[in-house]
């Protein structure tokens, strides 16, 4: 076999696992025709079928008519925007678990990214190396199937005493924000999430009904210690429980949390059952 022949053979072998995903169907929503064709060409080898549309309205119509395993959507569309398409997907129970990949040329603010992050797992910014990443991300989504967050929490029992309680989650670790939000919402809690201390204090000021706060220790700009002690200086929050989330296990780290105003603390990675038990005990006081 020639070297070239061998290379081709290897390439075929490497593609084999993705070709096995023969039943997958991907929806591409992109208004710009050249880009749309380009995306379709990238994804076609990965999926059994690729449907490409130019507008949000067409996307919604396509989603009504048949199921998809992945949606690739541009944010800036004429008429109905990509944001609205995502809102539509998340609002409908039958579509909610469909993975959404955002492919955008737009620079996103932290807030926009956080907002998108609750609805989509993957955001690809259009750049030189983006086609390669888009292909890899779609392949990963198609091979992993539906989003796994919900399944993971199946084991934790529902505590009826938590239902309706308002919780503020403050963590810069995006994995944690989404996992905790999903876990606590499943418990019927009303979750407000911030990825930094400054936003958390604003959120607390705007929502004085918050019953309990979970605060990560290590965060940019204002760390968890400062955030907790600032929370404690708010008259209405002086006696409500604050639980510190910490990756630190050294002697004295716990004391530091308590000194800063924490009522209790829980080690990262957070054990769901442990957290739910802790919330129940603090909220039944």
């Amino acid at each position: 076999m020639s070297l070239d022949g061998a290379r081709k053979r290897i390439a075929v072998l490497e593609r084999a696992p993705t070709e096995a995903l023969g039943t997958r169907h991907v929806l591409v929503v992109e208004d710009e025709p050249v880009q749309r064709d380009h995306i379709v060409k990238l994804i076609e080898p990965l999926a059994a079928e690729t449907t490409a549309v130019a507008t949000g309205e067409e996307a919604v119509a396509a989603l009504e008519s048949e199921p998809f395993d992945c949606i690739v959507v541009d944010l800036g569309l004429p008429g109905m925007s990509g944001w609205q398409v995502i809102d539509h997907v998340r609002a409908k129970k039958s579509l909610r678990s469909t993975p959404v990949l955002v492919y955008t040329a737009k620079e996103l603010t932290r807030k926009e990214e956080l907002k998108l992050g609750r609805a989509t797992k993957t955001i690809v910014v259009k750049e030189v190396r983006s086609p390669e990443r888009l292909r890899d991300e779609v392949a990963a989504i198609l091979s992993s199937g539906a989003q796994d967050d919900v399944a993971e929490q199946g084991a934790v029992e529902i505590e009826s005493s938590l239902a309706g309680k308002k919780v503020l989650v403050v963590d810069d670790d995006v994995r944690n924000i989404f996992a905790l939000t999903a876990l606590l919402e499943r418990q019927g809690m009303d979750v407000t999430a911030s990825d930094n201390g400054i936003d958390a204090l604003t959120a607390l000021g705007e929502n004085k009904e918050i019953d309990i706060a979970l605060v990560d220790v290590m965060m940019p700009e204002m760390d968890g210690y400062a955030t907790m002690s600032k929370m404690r200086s708010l008259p209405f929050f002086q006696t409500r429980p604050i639980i510190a989330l910490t990756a630190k296990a050294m002697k004295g780290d716990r004391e530091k949390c308590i000194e800063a105003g924490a009522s209790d603390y829980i080690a990262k990675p957070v054990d769901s059952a442990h957290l739910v038990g802790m919330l129940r005990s603090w909220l039944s006081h």
Partner: protein
Amino acid sequence: MDIQSLEDIEVKLLLEAVSLRYGYDFREYTAAPLRRSILTGMAGEGVSTISAYQDRLLHDTSCLQRFLSTVGVSVSSMFREPDTWRCLRDDVVPHLRTYPSIRVWSVGCATGEEVYSLAIALQEEGLLHKTSIYATDMNEDALAVAKAGSCSVERLRSYESDYLRSGGHSSLSTFFTSSGRVARLKRDLLHNVTFAQHNLVTDTSFNDFHLIICTNVLIYFRPTLQQRAHRLFYDSIIRSGFLALGQRESLVFAPESSRYHQVSDGVSVFRKVR
């Protein structure tokens, strides 16, 4: 019993004492450099036996801080191992650009030279504004020095050639303001940097990162501790994210070594592939 084994007993007891008293656990650090650190520490305190040093360490917290500054610390400089920096700029940065925001963890940042290099390189590549850098070290004193962002003008000059070899666009001096013999890193470069205490021996993952840089830290760890650190890194790197080690370091002790591939020959920069 010969002197060597008596010393071994004393070292063992001292490490046990420090761990019980303060929670800093050096028992899985490699023996030879650790012994050198202890001897350096003893000379600094003016004590003649390891047992006497242990006594002081137990009763004097400031003595511990001085000890921490000598354990597991390499002499650091900016853009050290320029081939690694070149690889980060040429092979890693293009991938980082495809993310709306980027998180980088500088592990064992010591007195900050690596963090400054990172901030400068990312600024030149136009990515610093959307990057959060987490710079951690177990030693609070070192972190305080790192946060200050200053360095002598002479030392800064000595970094210039490595900076240029790393693919630097201009001159290091453009990123500093100098008054007299002290150069200070321009404040905006450290705006997105979070300095925090974190100990690889005891602490866990606190975020997931697009890039983790940990150069010449693991060399002080025995294989068991290296494995722990590698597990922590693997758990803290996003899918298809990157891990940069020192040029002479490898993934030999990483149980996850088959889950990375080397980005470029001759440099220890790896990409998580599964």
